[in-house]
């Protein structure tokens, strides 16, 4: 086991180097000139040149790349072109807001997806199976931001069940003292349950939107995996022993944990970028929304920092997943050894 873990971990430094290089290449080797945007249309050539020197854009790409890598080794991601705030500070500030959203959304997605998929697998071939299949197809075909807007219309405007989608808390509410940066975590740590409740209410719409949207993925996986294991030899054996239908279903669930875990991990890592638009719709003020504003402003260090950060999160999550799965599944463990 230790040998496997070591094998996986040794890959991380090399991969990190590739990820950081790719982050640099994507942002720096482009035909667009950020100086034009920063300076504005009416700026003179001298102003542009001054900005170029100030931001270090007058140097060659290789020089900038070496600079970027050495800075990176010191843990420095550079600072924003515009307000000079260090990129790492911004990422720190917004990270936990997004983290909270992702955790809530994933929870809803897993529970809902399992419910739908499980229903389909339990009644496979019968009417509920066909119905859940249609439901999943419908969910899969709605863009998440459109689903968010529909929920805003119905839950906020029509039935007035949730507060306005204008951020994490109401305009007149006082945010808790910052510890981690995540509103819910902070208010919990401070024991401020009033703010926690308000925050939870505001979190309802975006997390339900993402939860419903991604439940289709879990639903399909759950339906396929559970359906397969309910038809398998071991369940047939359990049936011949006279175990109840419910018991067999539980056994099938245990069998299905590897693909489900894989999906949770992939979605967790992917959502740091994928929830950007939903964050924008609900003014969530998380890392995704921050990234989009920065991209539209062509704030190169910030974009670079975000891409690097997202790449690294994916890298670490996948490595962790690999190790976890080899630990849980003896079949895979045998194969890798």
């Amino acid at each position, binding site marked *: 086991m230790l040998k496997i873990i070591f094998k996986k971990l040794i890959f991380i430094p090399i991969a990190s180097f590739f990820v950081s290089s790719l982050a640099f290449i994507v942002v720096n080797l482009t035909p667009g000139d950020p100086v034009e945007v920063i300076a504005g249309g009416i700026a003179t050539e001298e102003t542009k040149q001054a900005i170029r020197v100030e931001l270090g854009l007058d140097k060659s790409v290789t020089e900038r790349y070496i600079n970027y890598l050495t800075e990176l080794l010191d843990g420095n991601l550079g600072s924003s072109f515009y307000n000079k705030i260090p990129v790492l500070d911004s990422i720190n500030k917004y990270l936990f807001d997004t983290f909270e959203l992702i955790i809530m959304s994933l929870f809803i997605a897993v529970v809902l997806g399992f419910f739908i998929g499980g229903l389909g697998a339990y009644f496979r071939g019968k009417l509920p199976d066909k119905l859940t299949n249609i439901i999943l197809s419908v969910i*899969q075909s709605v863009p998440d931001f459109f689903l968010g807007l529909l929920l805003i*219309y119905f839950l906020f*405007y029509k039935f007035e069940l949730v507060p306005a989608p204008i951020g994490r808390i109401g305009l007149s509410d006082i945010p808790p003292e910052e510890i981690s940066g995540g509103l819910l975590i902070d208010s919990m740590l401070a024991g401020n349950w009033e703010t926690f409740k308000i925050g939870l209410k505001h979190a309802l719409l975006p997390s339900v939107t993402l939860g419903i949207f991604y439940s289709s993925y879990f639903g399909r996986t759950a339906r396929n995996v559970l359906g397969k294991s309910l038809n398998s030899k071991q369940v047939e054996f359990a049936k011949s022993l006279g175990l109840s239908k419910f018991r067999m279903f539980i056994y099938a669930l245990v069998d299905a944990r590897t693909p489900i875990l894989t999906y949770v991990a992939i979605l967790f890592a992917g959502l740091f*970028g994928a929830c950007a638009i939903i964050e924008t719709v609900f003014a969530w003020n998380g890392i995704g929304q921050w990234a989009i504003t920065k*991209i539209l402003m062509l704030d190169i260090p910030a974009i670079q920092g975000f*891409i690097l950060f997202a790449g690294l999160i994916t890298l670490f999550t996948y490595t962790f997943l690999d190790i976890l799965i080899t630990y849980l599944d003896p079949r895979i463990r045998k194969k890798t050894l």
Partner: protein
Amino acid sequence: MKKYINKINKNNLPVIVSTLILINFSFGAFLYNFTHDPYTTDIIQRLTPPGEGFIFGTDEVGFDIFSRTIVAGKIDLFISLSGTFAALIIGLPLGLMASDKTKNAERIMKVLDMFQAFPLLVLAIVIVTMWGNNIRNVIFAIILINVPRFTRLIRSEALTIRESRFIEVAIAMGASKTRIISKHLLPNILGTLLAQASITTAHSIVVVAALSFIGIGVVPPEASWGSMIRAGSQYMMTGQWWMSVFPGLAIFFSVLSFNTISQYILRKYEQI
């Protein structure tokens, strides 16, 4: 004509409906005789609810939503389809190359894996903003996102088929590499490939819409579903739902159609 109508049955009805929906959006600009031009605004009739005169209502500047929803399909579907097929054409040789059991093949896969570690939607946004805000770059972004997916799929499909007996026999009979690929390999993965292309197009429609939703890619006055939803998004809080809902439904039905077609293709090929 009657012969064809008789052929419609429970199994292919969804596919026929899907195809009709897609034709409606792709060629709608020529099929309909719009009472209101999609590119001129009616300043007096702003925010008109759907009903008499304007079937789908008008938006905040007085554009007719019905004609714009139909016209937007042309450009949105064009971008998604051309991006997907370009990605397929690039991914095919890459995937076939990567299905060799050589060191180079492994390297291709490693690089593609790394690439997939990035948040792809954000990457598309970065490409379109930094490379210039035009349709060509949106298509390019779609290609870039999807080439790794196609490569991976083609590789895994080709790997399974390469193991099979009939390929072994073909090699033993002295068939050339091109012959094996074109006569034995490609026909066998065609179904999966087309099904994947259909799903990818559906994905791409959403990506294109997401880009215009945040204000890049296809932007007004050019009509696109994403930018129309964006224009209506603030009004969802105040009750003028029609601005976002109709283009949103257009996306929904197009995506659903492509997904349905994909499922149909898969089923068809599994039967054979």
